[in-house]
């Protein structure tokens, strides 16, 4: 006897209970505004629900969902460019606290975030997956469907800009 299929509401609730915090964390990190992050989180789950059938298992579910969340927030920031440049200067305690709990180097994460505005959305996503999510270049290549040389090239460009900012400090 088969278990009854979940209703849409039940599916949403189940997905959110499993991945909600992951999405919220990424949205807070990029948007730096609790209300905007909550709004973006809901939008991300809409996208997840709409694209569930297209998920083919090339990446793990959490990686796929994180990618959707990252892209959504980067797109949102791109449409609010001026606001973003001002926003990153604000200090948001709970973002750094979450970073400390997960052991992410908060200084590096902040620094990466500050640089993002200078790059195209694809390079932004690659930098986040590499420096914040600590994915390998091969994993990023598989996730984004871009060749390894392209990933390397984009990261090299990001590093060049980062090094100009910090000089000799081997930050990245």
């Amino acid at each position, binding site marked *: 006897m088969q278990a009854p299929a979940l209703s*849409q*509401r039940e599916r*949403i*609730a189940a997905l*959110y*209970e*499993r*991945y*909600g*915090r*992951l999405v*919220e*964390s990424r949205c807070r990190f990029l948007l730096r505004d609790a209300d905007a992050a909550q709004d973006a989180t*809901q*939008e991300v*789950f*809409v*996208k997840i*629900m*709409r*694209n569930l059938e*297209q998920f*083919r298992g*090339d990446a*793990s*579910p*959490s*990686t796929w969902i*994180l990618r959707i969340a990252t*892209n959504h927030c980067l*797109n949102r920031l*791109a*449409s609010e460019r001026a606001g973003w440049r001002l926003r990153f200067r604000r200090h948001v305690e709970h973002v750094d606290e*979450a970073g*400390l*709990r*997960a*052991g*992410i180097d908060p200084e*590096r994460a902040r620094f990466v975030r500050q640089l993002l505005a200078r790059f195209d*959305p*694809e390079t932004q996503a690659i930098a986040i997956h*590499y*420096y*914040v*999510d*600590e*994915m*390998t270049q091969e*994993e990023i290549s*598989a996730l*984004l*469907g*871009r*060749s390894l*040389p*392209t990933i390397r*090239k984009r990261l090299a460009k990001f590093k060049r800009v980062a090094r100009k900012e910090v000089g000799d400090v*081997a*930050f990245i």
Partner: protein
Amino acid sequence: MSPSSDRIRLHELRQLYFDELDPSAKAELEARLARDPEAQKRWKGLNLELSSGRASSELVDAITERLAARTPRSVRPSTHQRWPAPQWLAAAAATIGLVLITVPRGAPPDGQSTRTKGLAPAARPACSMRPCPSLEMYVKDKAGIRKGMEGARLRSGDWVQFRYRAEGRSHLYVVSLDDDHVLAPLYPDYRGQSVPIQPAGRHILPGSIILDDAIGPERIYAFFSEGPIDFEQIERAFSDVADPTTAVDIATLPASVAQVSILIEKVP
């Protein structure tokens, strides 16, 4: 400091948390974790960060409503209107200069012209039979008529019209694909077969498109072909596209089909 090969990466810890590793990889990672006090702190932090994502009823309601509110945009018959005086485009183009959206000659610098999820890039360029066709985009808004360039920021209510040069092809299908993977037919504005076009010279596509109120990036693709192509062929070709807002070469379409595209950004 970039991720080193010995250090347990955050990505690995997340996969462990969500139970996404095969049994041998999981056992290996757990063994590494047991030997690494620093990683154990990170693991504890990650558990605190990711646990208890309970969805309130109000939250589920909000997501459900948003999901229902996203009405399909696959057909836009009501948004197509003719510019009352199409000759304005010709006059404007002569004075403000033309922006030619053409297929790049030769392979892109990194040797990749195609991206499909999980697959190696296809070798076929977007136009394999020279000369390559072109599509020019013009935007009409409150400020007047202007050329549309890659990444143009457009708003709901802006009008868009196209001019093309088919370079010998006799059929055209123009579609748009947004970051929600919604594929919408633009010319023709229905799911059917491509429209016959003039194979030689530069011509304006009749009618114009009034942009709807959905925001975000959207890529407009024009497929020029020697014979008719169906919307379903295009739809199948896009089915595996990972990031629809980055130009891709649809290698699954017939080799005689040439593609040009332009990215627009819909802003509030």
